[in-house]
């Protein structure tokens, strides 16, 4: 089961000027929307993608079947850009 982690050189930043969370990495600053913020805030190096999806589904009272693909695709895209490692 895939566990997402932020590799060294990538971190979540609280941007108090723009009032949002930003994912900072090498030559990258991704301004996160609400869903991106929720997903990345749940990335702790212990929880799997499946667990994160389940947690978010519960928190937002949304069906897991709807949340899972969003979480998976978002993290897979970041993994391809090497802003997340899937271990």
């Amino acid at each position, binding site marked *: 089961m895939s566990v997402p982690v932020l590799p060294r*050189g990538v971190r979540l930043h609280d941007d108090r000027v723009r009032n949002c969370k930003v994912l900072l990495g090498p030559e990258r600053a991704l301004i996160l929307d609400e869903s991106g913020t929720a997903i990345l805030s749940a990335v702790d190096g212990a929880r799997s993608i499946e667990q994160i999806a389940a947690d978010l589904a519960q928190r937002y009272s949304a069906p897991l079947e709807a949340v899972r693909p969003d979480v998976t695709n978002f993290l897979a895209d970041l993994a391809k850009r090497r802003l997340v490692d899937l271990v």
Partner: protein
Amino acid sequence: MSDIPAPFALLAELTHRCPLSCPYCSNPLEMVRGAQELPTEIWADVFAQAASLGVLQLHLSGGEPAARRDLPELVAAARAAGLYVNLITSGIGLTPARLDALEAAGLDHVQLSLQGVNAQSADKIGGYKGGFERKMSVAGLIAERGLALTINAVMHRTNLDDLPRMIEMARELGARRIEIACVQFYGWALKNRAALQPSRAQVDQAKAIVAAARADPAERLVIDFVPPDYYADYPKACMGGGWGSTGLNIAPDGTVLPCHAAQTMTHLQFPNVQTMPLREIWYGSAAFNAYRGDDWMPEPCRSCPRKAVDHGGCRCQALALTGDAAATDPVCRKSPDRAKVDALLAEGESATEAEWTYRMSPV
């Protein structure tokens, strides 16, 4: 002031001193001497001002930033201000003890430049014997510590054919990312253009190599590629979002510029952090407002739909090649000066070996 966006990045040229003397160095021809460099506390204050302006990423550059003895203190100050700290280095001067100190100070990322794929080519370009070997050992020290690493490969006529090996080396050195930047012709590079300008065949080949690597599902390296713009039909966008839109550049003596090549714009007065707050410089100074928006644009840019994309191209290039900083970037097919770029390209295709002038380090 309300429609001027907050800046994202600050490039801090801590020093112009450097043990290398690359003939394409992005430092201005007139360099700042060591004695005029800003002291630690002013840089620390500037980093705090930048963060409160909205800057997220700080690039510590030079010259060779490791030539500053206070580098770890500067990194710590930037982290305390909340900035993401990237060190752009040749690696020379980074001992195990200094790397430990930088790591402890919270350095986020290292961008290590490679001048060539072996000692013979790299040391000739950098003008520093033994540099390649030192660099390889520094790369090992960075990997040992697990610091995030990008290999910065500066490519030109004499090394562009080594691109496949360059990419392979980035993988071997444990980099997660490689930035392949073809030399852009300003300052020193413009002086050495004849020797550095790649041929069209070389550029096409490089584009194909990059496209193939990116398409390979097994390729884990993130590849950023900046092709030379003389061969393009349209200019590159100035600073991504236009002049004074995304970032600022501070020279070793505290002079603030909209981009690193802007020193050539002698008709503008660039403010200094020692006499003006960074916020005022960003929003209010004449230099930062000079080419914001599109009121300054001549035709054909003014009525061109592409102006929202490239903002009329590079002001420094317009100045260097046409003598007028407000002209349409001559790389553009619509520019009345495009013939000047074509003439340079034609000259490049027929050139044989040309000697280059090494940059000199200030004292």
